[in-house]
């Protein structure tokens, strides 16, 4: 960390630090829940079916091993993306707690979180379609369908991603203004 970045460290109020710490704690709790869900749902084809939205699994009685592995992999990827989001969020909270909330590191962390949120939002749309295709051979004749579904959660994730990207730009502009201001006496 260069000297200018070091100078930008501004200690938060105790309340702010506690809030950031709570955010970190919630992030870790989220990761723990996801790991539990992975073990719980991944251990049985029937449980995977229960995890998926009913419109995707309508008419599917049981998964064969191929479909189970394929669906498991798809879900694993989506879980991994959510874990990635949470890890970035935890890092962001840690930076804020340590007073590093105006530097380049925070800007990069915001950008990474923004990308993670966008991937999560758009990935979920693709995930449903791919899962629908995996289950297609398992559904009875006449119930085959192509799933193209946009959920409100996907839109919210995408909006959060866009907001975070914009916030990273705002931080950059604020830092530029701060640098400029520092050149004046």
């Amino acid at each position: 960390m260069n000297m200018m970045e070091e100078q930008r460290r501004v200690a938060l109020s105790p309340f702010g630090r506690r809030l950031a710490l709570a955010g970190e704690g919630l992030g870790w709790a989220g990761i723990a829940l996801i790991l539990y869900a992975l073990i719980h749902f991944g251990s049985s084809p029937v449980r995977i079916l229960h995890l998926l939205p009913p419109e995707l699994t309508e008419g599917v009685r049981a998964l064969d091993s191929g479909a189970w592995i394929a669906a498991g992999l798809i879900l694993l990827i989506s879980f991994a993306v959510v874990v990635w989001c949470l890890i970035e969020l935890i890092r962001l909270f840690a930076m804020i707690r340590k007073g590093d909330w105006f530097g380049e590191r925070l800007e990069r962390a915001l950008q990474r979180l923004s990308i993670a949120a966008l991937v999560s939002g758009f990935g979920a749309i693709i995930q449903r379609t791919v899962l629908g295709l995996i289950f297609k051979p398992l559904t009875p004749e006449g119930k085959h369908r192509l799933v193209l579904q946009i959920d409100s959660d996907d839109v919210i994730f995408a909006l959060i991603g866009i907001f975070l990207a914009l916030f990273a730009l705002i931080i950059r502009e604020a830092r530029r203004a701060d640098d400029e201001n520092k050149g004046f006496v």
Partner: protein
Amino acid sequence: MTVEIIVTLDVMLARRKMRSKELAARVGITEQNLSLLKSGKVQGIRFRTLAAICEALDCQPGDLIEFRRGDGSGG
């Protein structure tokens, strides 16, 4: 041809026989910032600072800064 603003604050300080430390205290800026100003290593000076320096040294802004062309001729 380059143009620049030269800070002549040190000349004015010498004329008034005032130390940088005293001026910094009167103006309300740090000695470090005053040193940067004297060496011209700043991007700008706030009107508030300029006014305070003019008051402390009993001078005009033109006594503290000077416009020069790079080829050496005066502005």
